[in-house]
């Protein structure tokens, strides 16, 4: 880092400190075992398992419709995108023809979820670097999306809106108007985010050049989502392997090359703008049609292996299903973005201060249930 110890008359001693499982900066029950020399981080070892619920094992017991419900509880901030991943995997395996209407609605809801997730992240990011006010600004805007979700499917956080074959319900008649209202509202509020935090000198001092991740490391650690893109690694699943309606919208993949905390921050801010533009492109032309195609009540996937990946707010979520032709998967593996993003924490946090670790961790945007499952 910028302060280099040239010589020291004092014998310093490394010590060990527990950060978590109950700690404000870990946003959940993540435990970090820190080895510190004064304030300088020497080693970070994440200790997982405090919220492990064996979701993957439960999937082997459940039917495919039931599995969708479990995915809400993984990355609860992009619950709807998780649902979509499993539904897409099942639909592709069954080779179902999904109505256009469903694809468009899924895309809109997915992007709204992404904005909601980034709003929360932005608030928490500010809080982690000490600006408490951002939290409330982020939640104000997230609240509007939650209200839209509530009206659409009855739930605010764990939506369960997708089912294999389409959507559980058709959209509410107010949906289009309310989404447009939100887009107009958020377009005036997003510059406010920049005024409050992005341009702040202290914030830039805290983030620029902190926790630098090179492109090579990003790829070798399996970083995805904003974390990978901030290091210049073009890894947007929506762009490279379009699903749902992403092939018919134009949007820019937020890419930066600096790879530091500030770059990760800017990537997420830009993603919010891109998501808004995607929603705007689709909201006026939702095709008419069915909101769901009929599937068998008991879905049995043909024997084989299936993989589907989607871009959640945190990165690439992969669903890998091995089916033996029964009503349950033989094995279902989630490739969660948070897990690989956490794995690089030690790599980028060593040498920084405790404050740097907190800021870095905030831009990795960890959701612990996603990592532990």
């Amino acid at each position, binding site marked *: 880092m910028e*302060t280099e110890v040239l010589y020291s008359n004092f014998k310093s001693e490394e010590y060990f400190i527990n950060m978590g499982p109950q700690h404000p900066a870990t946003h959940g029950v993540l435990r970090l075992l820190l080895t510190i020399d004064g304030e300088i981080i020497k080693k970070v070892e994440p200790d997982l398992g405090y919220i492990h619920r064996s979701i993957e094992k439960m999937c082997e017991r459940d039917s495919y419709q039931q599995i969708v419900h479990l995915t809400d509880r993984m990355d609860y901030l992009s619950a709807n995108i998780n649902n979509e991943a499993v539904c897409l995997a099942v639909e592709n395996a069954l080779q179902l023809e999904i109505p256009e209407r469903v694809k468009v609605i899924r895309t809109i809801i997915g992007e709204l979820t992404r904005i909601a997730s980034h709003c929360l992240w932005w608030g928490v990011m500010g809080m982690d*670097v000490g600006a408490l006010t951002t939290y409330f600004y982020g939640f104000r805007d997230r609240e509007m999306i939650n209200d839209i979700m509530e009206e659409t499917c009855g739930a605010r956080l764990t939506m369960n809106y997708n089912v294999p074959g389409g959507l559980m319900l058709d959209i509410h008649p107010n949906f289009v108007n309310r989404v447009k209202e939100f887009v107009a509202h958020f377009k005036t509020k997003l510059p406010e985010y920049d005024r409050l935090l992005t341009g*702040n000198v202290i914030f830039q*001092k805290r983030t620029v050049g902190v926790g630098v991740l090179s492109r090579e490391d990003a790829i070798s650690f399996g970083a995805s989502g904003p974390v990978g893109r901030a290091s210049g690694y073009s890894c947007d699943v929506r762009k490279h392997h379009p699903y749902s309606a992403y092939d018919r919208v134009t949007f820019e993949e937020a890419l930066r090359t600096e790879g530091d905390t500030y770059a990760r921050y800017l990537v997420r801010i830009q993603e919010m703008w891109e998501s808004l533009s995607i929603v705007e492109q689709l909201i006026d032309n939702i095709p008419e049609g069915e909101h769901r195609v009929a599937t068998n009540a008991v879905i049995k996937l043909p024997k084989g292996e299936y993989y589907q990946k989607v871009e959640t707010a945190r990165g690439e979520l992969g669903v890998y299903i091995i089916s033996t032709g029964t009503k349950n998967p033989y094995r279902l593996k989630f490739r969660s973005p948070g897990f690989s993003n956490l794995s690089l924490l030690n790599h980028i946090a060593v040498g920084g201060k405790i*404050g740097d670790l907190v800021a870095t961790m905030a831009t990795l945007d960890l959701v612990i249930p996603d990592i532990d499952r």
Partner: protein
Amino acid sequence: MPLRITENIHNWLFSVMPEGVASLVEMTLIAVVYLTIFAVAGLFLVLLERRVAAWFQLRIGPNRVGPQGLLQTMADAIKLLTKELTGTEKADKFLYNLAPYFVIISALMALAVIPFSAEFHAFDINIGIFFLIAISSIGVIGILLGGWSSNNKYALIGAMRSGVQTISYELSVGLSLLTMVVITGSLQLSEIIEVQKSGWLILQGHIPAAIAFMVFMISGTAETNRAPFDMVEAESELGAGFHTEYSGMKFAYFFLAEFINMFIISAIAATVFFGGWLSPFGITESIPELGVFWFLLKTMALVFLMMWFRWTFPRLRVDQLLTLEWKYLLPINLVNLVLMALLVWLNLTLRL
């Protein structure tokens, strides 16, 4: 009016008791009055902070207990009083219990020399400014003791940061006030205010005074350990910092002391830069009773400024904090001091 009441009490006390006892009783009475001010001001400032924070954060803030939530902090204080005092087994009991008193007593002692108005001024000692600077640095001993004796690593890191921070920023607080003392030629607070009858010092000293004021507010915020310099209890990094292991009223002492210190820093700034209890341009000079009002108005404006800092700025990192002090504020301050000396020497100060 206030003068007459206190004088009457003074005369009555000395008429009914021997001299030594009377002055002891008098001192106790003054102390009781100041303790009351201390408690009320602390509680009021906590409430103000919460309302201001709510205002910044699109919330309403406490508004249920009493009219407009006025009794909220009172209720909180009662809750803290009735709470069990928990502590750690391995704490150094003596120092652990002693630490809160260092913090609260130093804050209280500083309050004693603050000139609320011409008459409402407990001790007008001739080294007023010096006394304030000296006393306000005693509080850090309490924080260091608290952090050390809690036997908690988070508390220790917090205390360590506090030591580093307060010792560094002490210099800037002292030097920026010293810059103003060059104009006044006196350390006595009543003298300093007397000088400002021909214009507030921030106007008299124009450029160097404005710089000194900015430096003072920055380093004053740092010395009270408030955001953006709240390294000491950076909650996202250290949990609660040095007072992690404190509970109940001991915690409340640290908490109240923080707010009183904020009040004291603002009060010093109001006194030294903005004429203390003097009215702007002497508009109410004929009514000296309004002195308290003007003093509190100025102080509250500065308190609000400090709250504004807190609720809009992110927190600095600990090394950046030291960089700011040693590489920027201190050199600026030293140059500023010379500039002010030149200004006074060449008689370039503005006087009405």
